């Protein structure tokens, strides 16, 4: 397995607070990896340890198979959640400063920056001072600064906050493009819709612990409560009676736009599906069926609540 990041048993404590407790996770090269969790769960601390900003108390972090060193930060691009720029500095100078800190020489950095500025349509900001920019504008500059040195690993902490939908889409497009070009993306957010849309795998952190890890598709299947949508032509009541033996619940909903009748039903278990289909076929003309997978929102809330109940509230 080709992992760009292996976090193994990492713990980190501050004065009276354990921010990370024996957290492990692996990030596969080339994927978009979601890091989820409630506020204060320890995500930012984890991201900082991956960025070599803070050192873990115990545990190891491997980057491309070797222990993470300061030199590796040149291969990482990090867009923090709390982000700012030097207010009095000109946009261009500032972008150059950050690019050079990542090891790019001046000529190369200037060339790359100009092309990025054109790509995001902000070329006329080059000589403006940052204090003249709006928040969204400043964030575009920060995004460019993060990705300019073509890092292997990109870490975005709430990248879309503060962006209008149009710019958020531009950003999403650019992130996916970077992934297609070979970059790995770690992505921390509270926006579950964007997790479903972008992430291949996730880890859910709650109260300093890793409580759930895995590929998004698998997780959604695992958390499935065997809900299905049947579309059919015929008598809904007959269908309900026919399915009574195999379902826990049955709900006849509004017809869809084509005027097709629909029913949402929950099976007793996954094995009941063939029986349900046979029974439905006998009662009505079954036009189609599809599994209804739980949303990441549901999984998030369910897992976090369960984990909170198991762990008695400290203090």
């Amino acid at each position: 397995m080709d992992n760009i990041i292996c976090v193994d048993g990492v713990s980190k404590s501050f004065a009276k607070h354990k921010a990370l407790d024996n957290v492990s996770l692996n990030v596969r090269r080339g994927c978009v990896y979601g890091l989820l969790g409630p506020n204060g769960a320890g995500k930012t601390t984890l991201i900082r340890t991956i960025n070599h900003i803070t050192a873990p108390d115990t545990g190891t972090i491997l980057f491309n198979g070797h222990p993470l060193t300061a030199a590796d930060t040149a291969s990482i691009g990090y867009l923090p959640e709390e982000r700012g720029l030097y207010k009095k500095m000109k946009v261009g100078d500032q972008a150059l400063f950050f690019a050079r800190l990542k090891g790019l020489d001046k000529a190369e950095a200037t060339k790359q920056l100009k092309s990025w500025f054109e790509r995001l349509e902000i070329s006329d900001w080059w000589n403006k001072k940052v204090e003249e920019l709006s928040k969204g504008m400043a964030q575009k500059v920060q995004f460019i600064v993060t990705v300019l040195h073509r890092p292997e690993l990109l870490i975005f902490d709430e990248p879309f906050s503060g962006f209008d939908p149009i710019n958020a889409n531009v950003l999403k497009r650019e992130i996916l493009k970077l992934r297609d070009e070979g970059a790995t993306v770690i992505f921390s957010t509270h926006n579950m819709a964007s997790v479903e849309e972008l992430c291949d795998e996730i880890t859910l952190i709650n109260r300093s612990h890793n409580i759930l890890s895995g590929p998004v598709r698998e997780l959604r299947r695992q958390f499935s409560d065997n809900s299905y949508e049947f579309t059919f032509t015929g008598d809904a009541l007959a269908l309900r009676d026919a399915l009574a033996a195999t379902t826990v619940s049955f709900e006849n909903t509004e017809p869809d736009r084509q005027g097709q009748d629909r029913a949402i039903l929950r099976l007793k278990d996954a094995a009941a599906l063939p029986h349900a289909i046979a029974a439905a076929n006998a009662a009505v003309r079954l036009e189609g069926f599809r599994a209804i997978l739980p949303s990441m929102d549901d999984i998030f809330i369910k897992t976090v609540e369960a984990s909170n109940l198991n762990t008695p509230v400290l203090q």
Partner: protein
Amino acid sequence: MNSPLAIVIRREYLERVQRKSFIISTLLMPIFMIGLMLTPALVAVFSGPENKTVAIVDQSQQQIGRHLQSDGELRFLCVDSDQKSAMADKSYDAVLVIGPDAVSRPDDIRFYSHEAASMQTERSISSQLESIIEGERLKGYDIENLAGILKEIQVNVDLDTYRISEGDDASETSSLASYIVGMFMSLMLYMFIMLYGQMVMTSIIEEKNNRVLEIVVSSVNPTSLMMGKIVGIGLVAITQILIWGVLLTACSMWVLPLVAGAAESGAGIDLGMYGSPAYIMQLFAYILLFLIGGYLFYSSIYAAVGSAVDNIQDASQLQSVAIIPIILGMVISMAVVQTPSSSLAMWASIIPFTSPMVMIARIPFGIPAWQIWLSVVLLYASFVGMVWVAAKIYRVGIFMYGKKPSVAELLRWARYK
């Protein structure tokens, strides 16, 4: 020159030196300083003499009152009227009442004034009266040719001070000039360390407040960032000092000979070696040495303080850790210029917290070289130690938001892994 440290230093330096405010303050400061130094002289020139009329009610047998000499400020007038009517007369500013037995009992002389008499007026009258009464008393001994004898024994000593130095020739100095130069240099160091130390602190707070810090530390390790800031801002201070140094050297070559001439003939101040550009350059080198050491030492304290707080308001209390010793150094150096060789002076000029200010105040008086070098070595060594501690605090502090920490908490952060 492409290490992250060098890039941070470059940014910190250019950001400040290119600002208009830096250029203006660098050029205006000397003018302001000269103005500040000239103010007392100007005040003296323009305020002029007091011009008071003093009525003398003389009841003494020897009539000593008539010997009082009027000068530019005081005009003495012997009056026949009694004390009461003289005091009632508004045309007199003051009334001097000399008792009948003033020669044998000098405390029988009283001075009444409508307004508070200045110390100078009082001193001038009493010193005149002292010599008059002395003369009257001497007369009582009936010595022949008294005036001649007195003239013969009169002497006026004008001490020429020389400093014994290692070389063969003793160089001429003047304590007064050393006093002024020492005080001035100490004040300058105080100002610079305070100003630029606080600049380091505010710049760190600003970065933290701005949240630009998190982006920067993902490319530079926190210690390099802190060092880059301290060095970059320090270079700004040195640039400013060098500009002033050039101005001062030019000034000492063209203007000083004129001033020195005027000072020697006019005020009777002997500038001694302060008239020599070579000596000024030497002093200048010492200033740089102690300025850099003192700045580095204190700016690392300021950096630790700046990293620990969220805004300037919170910093005010915590930064007393730096301010108190700096002010203490300044206060001690004020005492030190009076007694440059006391043991307080020696210890305060060697212990790193106060040493930059105190040592620079002592140097013009000429002190053993080993003391200077011991002080320098200790200062730079403790800077290294202080930076090490500050870096540890800084590394933790920059990610701490919210509650304002105490000094004890800062020290605990320094122990984190």
